């Protein structure tokens, strides 16, 4: 056959085209099967994530509600004395917002940038109708703070709708008009410390899960079937119990008048007046989360260990290795895909854990997710919540990438 000539089917049409025609129906059917789920995932997962992530860098409250002042702030250099025009536009916008009952939103937005400015807006807005030119004087008369440069700088920053400000706040930095980003002073840093703590707690939970789960997975993989089935049910039992029930059970067990402390006092390890605080702190968070996440470590480990035939260990021993050496040199390296999968799974789940630390974490057992929830529900600073969440997501993706580089995603076995 001539190499340059494309291969044709019996009726003369090119074979590729014929194949595409023949495959079209089955491809169509395959696509049809996936479409509902794809649409659901797009609508309920991908789109909300993108929308919320967008809020982390884009907040147009000020620009939208204070259009006149926006124009003035845009041309202002940020360091010179605010002009009479700027005050005039401020008053005009305040009047409008007062009428539209949207002044609260503006006040909250600026307050996020510079704490303590909320009442400035609300009270001046109330009086805005009666204010007369020259506006600079009359506005400063209502509240002296209007004369301060930093209030105007805060407004200029707020005026920037597309802003890195929330991400800066998430990293404990402050955006300034004239000096770029400045780190907050040490004792006012909250979020970076919380991120570090989150990573540490997640790491500890992961290590504890590995230490506790590895022997169990080994037993599961090596015991005769009827024992291993029973053991497997015990491993899976927590999955069938409500997360809330398990967490509250830990409260009953670990609290200072709880089972564990009573036992320790009874044995004599500690006195009745010096009971251990095992809950409402970091210890409580770690204990409860380790328990809850343990199955996620055991199952991938088990699925890998099950595929390792016992003859490897036997071969190693017949070649002269002690049981310990055979285990470390021959068995353990083969479980690395399971360790990787379990570790990554537990770590990623732990990093975003919310309910358990909220219930048993107390002050120093809170994770970054609790702070995100706070900003979503209490402070209503969704942009900051989105920025914190974005950092968390980014962190997880970086970890995932690092895992892929070091161990390889293909090596991962989840079950």
């Amino acid at each position: 056959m001539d190499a340059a000539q494309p291969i044709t089917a019996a009726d003369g049409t090119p074979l590729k085209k014929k194949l595409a025609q023949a495959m079209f129906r089955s491809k169509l059917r395959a696509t049809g099967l996936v479409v509902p789920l794809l649409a659901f995932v797009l609508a309920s997962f991908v789109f909300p994530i993108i929308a919320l992530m967008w809020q982390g860098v884009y907040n147009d409250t000020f620009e939208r509600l204070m259009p006149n002042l926006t124009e003035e702030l845009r041309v202002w250099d940020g360091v010179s004395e605010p002009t009479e025009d700027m005050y005039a536009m401020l008053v005009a916008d305040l009047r409008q917002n007062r009428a539209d009952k949207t002044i609260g939103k503006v006040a909250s937005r600026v307050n996020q940038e510079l704490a303590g400015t909320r009442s400035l807006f609300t009270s001046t807005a109330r009086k805005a109708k009666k204010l007369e030119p020259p506006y600079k004087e009359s506005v400063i008369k209502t509240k002296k703070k209007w004369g301060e440069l930093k209030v105007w700088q805060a407004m200029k920053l707020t005026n920037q709708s597309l802003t890195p400000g929330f991400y800066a706040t998430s990293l404990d930095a402050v955006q300034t008009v004239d000096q770029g980003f400045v780190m907050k002073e040490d004792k006012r840093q909250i979020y970076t410390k919380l991120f570090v703590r989150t990573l540490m707690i997640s790491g500890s939970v992961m290590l504890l899960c590995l230490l506790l789960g590895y022997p169990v997975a080994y037993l599961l993989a090596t015991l005769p079937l009827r024992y291993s089935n029973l053991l497997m049910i015990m491993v899976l039992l927590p999955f069938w119990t409500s997360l809330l029930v398990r967490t509250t059970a830990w409260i009953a067990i670990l609290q200072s008048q709880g089972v564990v402390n009573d036992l320790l006092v009874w044995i004599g390890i500690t006195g009745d007046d010096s009971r251990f605080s095992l809950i409402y702190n970091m210890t409580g968070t770690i204990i409860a989360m380790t328990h809850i996440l343990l199955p996620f470590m055991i199952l991938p480990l088990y699925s890998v260990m099950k595929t390792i035939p016992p003859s490897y260990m036997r071969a190693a021993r017949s070649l002269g290795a002690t049981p310990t050496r055979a285990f470390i040199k021959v068995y353990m390296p083969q479980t690395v895909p399971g360790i990787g999968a379990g570790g990554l799974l537990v770590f990623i789940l732990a990093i975003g854990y919310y309910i358990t630390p909220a219930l048993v974490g107390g002050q120093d057992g809170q994770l970054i997710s609790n702070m995100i929830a706070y900003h979503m529900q209490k402070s209503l600073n969704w942009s900051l919540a989105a920025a914190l969440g974005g950092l968390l997501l980014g962190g997880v993706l970086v970890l995932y990438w690092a895992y892929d580089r070091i161990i390889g995603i293909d090596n991962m076995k989840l079950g």
Partner: protein
Amino acid sequence: MLDGTNPFVRFRNVQKSYDGETLVVKNLNLDIEAGEFVTMLGPSGSGKTTCLMMLAGFETATHGEIELGGRPINNIPPHKRGIGMVFQNYALFPHMTVSENLSFPLKVRGMSAGDIQDKVTRALDMVQMRVFGDRKPAQLSGGQQQRIALARALVFEPELVLMDEPLGALDKQLREHMQYEIKHIHENLGVTVVYVTHDQSEALTMSNRIAVFDDGVIQQLDDPVTLYEKPENSFVAQFIGENNTLTGTIESLTGNVAKVKLEAGDSVKALAVNTDGKGSRTSLSIRPERCVVSPKKVAGLGMLKGRIEELIYLGDHIRCRMNVAGNDEFIVKVPNTADQLGLEIGAESYVGWQTDDCRALDFKQV
């Protein structure tokens, strides 16, 4: 290590039970001399692998003693026995290269890097796999993996090597090739080999002696020739090679020749090997290649009438299935010679054999 009077490996009254109810190995006695190639042959579940595992140290004998070089080894853990082992699925460590696999037993013995390098190279040369040292086992074919497994079991120069159906996963041609290779390595190195298989041709090809296992008992322990030519009981006769069986009752015994009345009514003479004497039932064993088919009676042979049921032309011989004395699975291998008689399906003919080739063994219902 060896003091002349003691065999190199000795099983003494060894019993093994897994559940405390049934014995997998029943009172095993087996002596293996240094340098021997002994095969444990038997159907699955006959206890042969259990015996090997007890020798390797992965199973403990419920009763009895196993000695290696005169020392009892029942309480010595596997890694201190210094026995090389080749496993059925090769058991090459997948996370190590071929060279690392081979240096593993040397490293655990604390050898210097130079010595390890030397020995690994030599072992790889022995199996002609030198260029594959840097590959991972998964990148090798089954036969290559088998060679590496063999080299790994030999690289630390053990005096005893155990092989647990090492060729089971290979295709027929490669299996036969590897049989010769293992045989030659055994001859060159002079190590003692204990080999487990359920493939009788493999056992016959390689072994000095074969222990035929069934039901946890060694049925017969002999060299391949004796085992094939002179089976001691019906199980061995049927398990090794092809075999025709006729059942009957012993009418009389003269010396070691028994007159047996077959169930179909005819009487034949047979060599009494393993019978309970006059009046007892017996199974007669006749090899297909020791029978002749003839239209007339031949003097000096035991002859029976039969009917040719099937003829299969196999080139060097013709496989003739006959109905003889009620057994319609009676096979005769007729050599393909020039004067070969014209056999015809459905023809009545005589089939005959020498008295010595018809062995009267213990009765076994077929």
